[in-house]
């Protein structure tokens, strides 16, 4: 029965109702930040230089200011001294370039005008005198002796690495790698690179700031509104209570919208002009604002003849760009599980965050793991080949089983991972005959879930039995609104259309640490669940008072109130309980995972995301074209609270992974300029580039820490796409592949190299 007496069944977890807010998204009714129109708003255009690295000598705004409608040309000179800096991990990024630019696209000035056209015209007319300085663009450039330093050592006091372009070194591991290497039966090593790619969210990044009494209101396409509120409070010197962040549901984030970028600048401009200021980035500007870390990885595997892994030795250098953003955390957390989901007695990992004069890198779905996975899984295939063991078999032999130790200081294996591997192998038809020119690959991916977390939720049961859920997660397309509504529906027995989920307003919605690391279903989900249970407890107390019986004798679950002698609905308690004055029942919930100061990542994994991807490809030997004949992805999700959304997350991640696997990459020139800004020469997969067949499946053992046994799962299917595709191409052709993306030209070159190698062997 339904709690509210409408007779409509609640929508429980484990079903797939229509997405909450989905109709607004597909009809265009949803208001994104770029749709927000404030009266009297000024349009902002950034002024950038056509170089990567330059000393700014002077900025002459006179011609720009003469353009009709221009209200201000804002530079570092308009900011407090020293120019405020900010960042989620290091306080290194200036609000606007001061003294020098460090990457192609770093703004040196910003124009505010009555119209976008006037702002653009004026931005062209800002005359910047500058002296170009040779940039360091690649990891090799940055690590060369005597390389130009990207960060002034003075902003890194007491840092032994301050005189280098290495921001941080991370060392992880256990066991004795050298001793294992002395006894391993086969040792295989290789070098692998991962390209520089951007998130390419379809919604443009946008920022609006408006003076709001003695505070400020900021609209942003941000994933972490509370973190942004803290950053703004710091740079503006305002209490948190005076900084109101509105975060309408983003249209895709993928990590690129996690952290503050131009919000501080726009806020300062709004305070200076006394008017709302608005900046919507073009796609080209977005390329210059967010990108993924790119890597060079050297990996060495030692195996014994029976196929067990003796050791894994990984050196991973990540090019993180000109400012740290959250990239050093990406480096640490991405390289930490480099040994993979296997039982390995000895592991040694050295990873480095390398600063360069390129776009600051940030979080990107997979958080540094796909880069290392490409190297480690590809190399494991080579080791299996060297031993003459089947590539699936070597994985099954080593993959951890529930309760097995992975890293001795971290969470133990928390899933039946071999089930996912066997399922994927079966779905791809592993071992069955293939047509000529086809090949198969299989790869395993693991990612540490959140290492800390804090989410609060308030659930309000209103007098008519409808419900408001307050949850500070950002629903950027993953479907968090729907899942939270389903949890409330399950717990309180209220149908979905009588539940409102309120997000994205820091003055109203309780604190949430962040929307990242596939955490929201687990952490915020648990907070919503505990808030619902709090509501149930209050209903129990209300029922006890109404019926004059002991609370302990009453049970409230799923919208049903069980008295000792009968069952009644929630409304049967709520209506008389609230009485004539109305009111509501308010439940509060919290989910918290504390930091562990002695842990190498300051916290063990709340859960692991585990995925197995299996691929069949066909390769055109003449052109290098790779056709994905079949793409299989299996994720261990604990419990799919909304099976359709889980599948969409898996498929979306898998397809996004095909981008860096097959076609996406930034092209820099020697001067550090990005040559392929925008959609014409930076290609992402279209519907025509999809696999001919794609199948996704899940393993559900209700063994996760989230509500009803759920685990986070939104990144898993991206982790090992490249590894599985590369393995399939290798299997089809015999060509060795080390560098992504596997464009037709790259594969064609690898095929020529294979032919050259074979001819050499014949000659010998």
């Amino acid at each position: 029965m339904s709690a509210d007496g409408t007779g409509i069944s609640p929508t429980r977890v484990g079903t797939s109702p229509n997405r909450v807010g989905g109709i607004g998204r597909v009809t265009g009714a949803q208001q994104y930040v770029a749709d927000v129109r404030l009266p009297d708003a000024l349009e902002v255009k950034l002024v950038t230089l056509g170089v990567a690295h330059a000393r700014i000598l002077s900025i002459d705004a006179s011609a720009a200011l003469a353009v009709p409608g221009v209200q201000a040309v804002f530079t570092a000179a308009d900011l407090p001294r020293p120019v405020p800096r900010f960042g989620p991990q290091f306080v290194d990024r200036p609000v606007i370039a001061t003294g020098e630019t460090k990457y192609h696209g770093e703004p040196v000035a910003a124009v505010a005008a009555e119209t976008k056209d006037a702002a653009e015209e004026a931005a062209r007319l800002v005359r910047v005198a500058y002296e170009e300085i040779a940039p360091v663009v690649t990891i090799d450039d940055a690590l060369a002796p005597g390389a130009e330093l990207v960060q002034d050592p003075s902003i890194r006091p007491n840092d032994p690495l301050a005189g280098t372009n290495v921001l941080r070194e991370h060392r992880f591991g256990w066991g004795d790698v050298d001793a294992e290497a002395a006894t391993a039966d086969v040792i295989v090593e290789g070098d692998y690179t991962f390209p520089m790619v951007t998130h390419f969210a379809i919604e443009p990044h946008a920022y609006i700031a408006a003076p709001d009494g003695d505070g400020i209101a900021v609209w942003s396409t941000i994933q972490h509104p509370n973190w942004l509120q803290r950053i703004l409070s710091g740079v503006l010197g305002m209490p948190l209570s005076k900084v109101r962040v509105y975060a309408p549901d983003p249209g895709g984030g993928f990590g690129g919208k996690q952290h503050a970028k131009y919000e501080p600048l726009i806020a300062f401009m709004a305070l200076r002009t006394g008017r709302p200021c608005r900046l919507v980035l073009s796609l080209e500007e977005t390329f210059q604002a967010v990108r993924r870390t790119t890597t060079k990885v050297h990996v060495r595997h030692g195996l014994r003849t029976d196929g067990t892994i003796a050791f894994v030795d990984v050196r991973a250098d990540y090019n993180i760009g000109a400012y740290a953003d959250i990239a050093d955390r990406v480096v640490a957390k991405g390289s930490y599980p480099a040994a993979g989901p296997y039982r390995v007695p000895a592991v040694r990992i050295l990873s480095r965050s390398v600063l360069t004069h390129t776009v600051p890198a940030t979080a990107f779905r997979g958080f540094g793991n796909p880069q290392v996975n490409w190297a480690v899984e590809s190399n494991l295939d080579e080791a299996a080949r060297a031993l003459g063991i089947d590539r699936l078999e070597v994985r099954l032999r080593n993959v951890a089983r529930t309760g097995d130790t992975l890293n001795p200081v971290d969470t133990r294996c928390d899933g039946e991972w071999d089930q996912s591997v066997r399922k994927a192998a079966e779905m791809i038809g592993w071992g069955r005959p293939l047509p000529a020119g086809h090949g198969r690959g299989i790869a395993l991916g693991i990612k540490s879930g959140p290492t800390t977390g804090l989410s609060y939720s308030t659930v309000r049961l209103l007098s008519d039995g409808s419900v408001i859920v307050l949850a500070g997660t950002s629903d950027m397309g993953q479907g968090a609104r729907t899942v939270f509504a389903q949890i409330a529906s399950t717990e309180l027995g209220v149908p979905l259309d009588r539940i409102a989920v309120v997000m994205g307003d820091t003055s109203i919605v309780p604190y949430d640490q962040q929307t990242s690391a596939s955490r929201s279903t687990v952490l915020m989900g648990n907070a919503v669940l505990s808030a619902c249970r709090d509501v149930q407890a209050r209903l129990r107390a209300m029922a006890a008072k109404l019926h004059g019986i002991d609370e302990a004798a009453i049970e409230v679950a799923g919208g049903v109130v069980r008295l000792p002698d009968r069952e009644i609905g929630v409304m049967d308690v709520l209506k008389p309980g609230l009485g004539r004055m109305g009111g509501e029942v308010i439940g509060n919930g919290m989910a918290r995972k504390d930091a562990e100061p002695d842990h190498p990542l300051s916290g063990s994994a709340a859960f692991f995301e585990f995925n197995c991807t299996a691929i069949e490809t066909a390769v055109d030997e003449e052109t290098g074209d790779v056709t994905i004949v079949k793409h299989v992805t299996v994720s261990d999700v604990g419990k799919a609270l909304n099976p359709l959304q889980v599948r969409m997350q898996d498929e979306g991640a898998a397809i996004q992974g095909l981008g860096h696997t097959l076609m996406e990459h930034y092209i820099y020139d020697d001067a550090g300029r990005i040559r392929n800004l925008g959609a014409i020469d930076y290609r992402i997969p279209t519907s025509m580039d999809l696999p001919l067949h794609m199948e996704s499946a899940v393993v559900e053992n209700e063994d996760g820490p989230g509500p009803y046994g759920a685990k986070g799962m939104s990144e898993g299917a991206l982790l090992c796409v490249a590894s599985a595709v590369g393995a399939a191409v290798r299997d089809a052709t015999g060509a060795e592949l080390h560098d992504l993306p596997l464009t037709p030209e790259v594969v064609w070159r690898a095929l020529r190299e294979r032919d050259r190698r074979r001819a050499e062997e014949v000659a010998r």
Partner: protein
Amino acid sequence: MHAFAYERPATLAEALALMQAHGSAARLLAGGTDLIIRLRDGSARPSVVIDVKRIPELDPGIRVDAGRLVIGARTVMTDIAADAHVRRHFLALAEAASVVGSVQIRNRATLAGNICNASPAADTAPPLLVYDATVVAAGPDGTRRIPIDAFFVRSGVTTLVPGEIVTAIELPVPDGPLGAAHQRRTRRRGHDLASVTLSVAIGGSGTTRLAYGSVGPRPVLHVDGSGVLADASATAEAKARVFEAAFADASPSPRSMRAGPDYRLAMLRVLGARAVATALDRLAGE
């Protein structure tokens, strides 16, 4: 976007007068699929944009007239790709028109615009070259007919003189059997700019016309009268020699970010062989 004046002449004469008056400060707008991008990115900053969509003399349409197929200047790619005459006699042009940009772009982009933009990668240039098309251009001094091979100069530059407007493209309807095919290389299957384009047309007499683009400043036509490419029994070595001669004028830029020169040159040979094989199959089916 930079501000500009917008004119929408109702006749060809008015359009020509506007072109005279504004000279190089004017840009013509037909489908807009090239121009709008350039207006947005600021690489074109005309003071006046002349919209030719209301000029009856440029009306879209495909008709056969005295042994020639006449394609009106404003005919869009979608209509060319679907047209029965084009598919019957000029299949390589239909194939090329059907891969320009995306569905949305093909619904707007005109054939005349594609060639006037004179991109070395223009998909429709190779088929127009193998079919020996003629560009009809109206100017202040009357109408000129320009053989397509004498039309392209380099990227963005044609032999049109200032003030001229293309009114139609004409293709001679073949008087005998012809097998033709169009091939291209792109970085992905979804809509993309080509890194190599190539068309062939093989006549019953044994003459093969082969044209290719995106490997030099302008698309290149090569006519092979040796009969080797048209000969299904010719050896691969013999065909390779003809291809060597045909592709001698390819000069792909090492600065291109779409593909390396060696890959492009290798792909010319792959596409050439594939297009010839397809064209021969089609010729045999005529």
